[in-house]
Every structure is written in C-alpha cells, then in structure tokens.
C-alpha cells in the first residue's frame, strides 16, 4: 500500500470500563438514530440500487479514515472520544446487516447486475475512502 502512510495501532481491543461502554452506548444510539432518520426520509425502494445505504456506509468509511489517526494520539483525558465517535457513532451509523440483506434481496429478485454493482461499490469504495480519509487526516495534521 501507499508508502508515505505508517501503520496505525488497531482500534481494538478497547479497555471496556463502564465509562467506555456508556460512551459506546451513547454514540451507538446517536449514529443509529441518524441512519434511521435518513433511511425514513430517503428509503431505498426494493429492486433498485440502495443509494441511501451506500452513502451512509461510504461516509462512515471516509469518517473512520479521517478520525482514526487523530484518535490514536488522544491524551488520556479525551480517551472516551474514540469509543464514543469511532466504535459508537460510526459503528451505529454504518451497517453490515442491511448491506447483506439488501444484496440478497437484489439477487433473489434477479437484479444480479445491481446486486454485484452495489456490493462492489461498497467494498472497493469503502477501502478507497478509508485511504482518502487517512491521507487527508495526516496532511491536515502536518500543516498545523
């Protein structure tokens, strides 16, 4: 992969203190209800490309790319920001279960091309946006 980027420590395992779990709960609730509200305002109709869920998941990949390098250097006083934002908000905002069910329903309805395109856009788009987010995050960080 890109040579100018150094490996980051993995986001897990967390130290799961009650405060950490509370941060995950609050962030997860916030992220999940945001996805629910966007989903109900712009529902993905069956048999069509699930644009809303794709935008939700790809924005989450960009955001984790931007945030993870910053979170790795937080002082202990701000240590709860990572479980709140990364594990909670972004984990609740994005979804794998809806990706899998929508993919299956597209295949089941013989929309093979849409299904393959949707899964490929999520997987490869997600990887590209994590890389983009990390690159932007480090560039901003160096210039400040």
């Amino acid at each position, binding site marked *: 992969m890109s040579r100018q980027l150094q490996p980051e420590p993995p986001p897990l395992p967390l130290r799961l203190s009650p405060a950490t779990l509370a941060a995950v709960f609050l962030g997860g609730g916030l992220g999940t209800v945001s996805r629910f509200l966007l989903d109900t305002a712009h529902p993905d109709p*069956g048999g069509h490309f699930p644009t809303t869920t794709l935008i939700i998941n790809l924005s989450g990949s960009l955001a984790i790319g931007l945030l993870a390098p910053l979170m790795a250097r937080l002082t202990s006083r701000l240590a709860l920001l990572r479980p709140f934002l990364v594990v909670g908000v972004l984990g609740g905002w994005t979804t*794998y279960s809806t990706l899998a069910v929508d993919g299956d329903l597209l295949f089941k309805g013989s929309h093979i091309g849409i299904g393959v395109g949707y899964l490929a856009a999520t997987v490869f788009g997600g990887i590209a946006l994590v890389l983009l987010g990390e690159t932007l995050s480090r560039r901003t960080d160096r210039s400040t």
Partner: protein
Amino acid sequence: MTTFGVASHSPTLGLALLVAVAGGLGAMARALLIHEVGRRRSDPLPLGTMVVNASGSFVLGLLTGCSMYHGLGPHELSIAGVGLCGGYTTWSTASWESVHLLRDQHRSEALVYTFGGLLTSLAGAALGIGLTAAL
C-alpha cells in the same frame, strides 16, 4: 435499507428514541463481543468483527423474512432491525480493518477478511430469510 415495511413516513419521537436505545445496546454488544474474541486470539485476522457482522446479518434476515412472510410490523422491524442489528453490525470498522490488513502486509488475511466477511454475511442473511420463508 430496502424497506419491507419499515415505517416510511415521518417517525414519532417515541419510535426514534426506541431505535436509538436499540442501536446503543447493539453497539455495546458489538464492542463486548469483539473485545472478548480479540482477547483470546493473537492471529491478525479480526474474527470478532466477522462474527458480529455475520450473526447480525442472520438476525436481520430473520426479521426481514418475518416482515415479508409473517406480518412483522413496521415499528418492530425498525427497532429490532434498523436499531439493534444496525447498531450491532458495522461497515466503517470492516473497511478500516481491510485497509490495515493490506497495509501490514497480511494480504491473505485481507482477502479472507474482506470477501469471507461479505460471503458469510450474505449467507447468514440468506439463511435467515430462507428459514422464515420455509416456516
């Protein structure tokens, strides 16, 4: 999500709060499970995330099937499906871990994680839908 009966007009505050609580509980369950699996393993493959996403996809498959074939209501599907399963499963961590397996030169793990994770979740969801269709 592709809305089989998820409440599609403006949700009430009460429903939104229940979805938020379900999502928070799902996220906590995910953090605990990934932590427990990670503690027991030294392998670079993030098995915990794969287990979370496949099991959450199976449960959402069951719920979607119940909504399609057995009249599960839109509010129940929103709370248990969009809330609990959506808060429990994650795409952001999955894409991040794929990138970091590649970057750390764990190429075969990256392939197994990315595409094995996708296939096990698709299979889990299909099993859930299939089980409810057969009942």
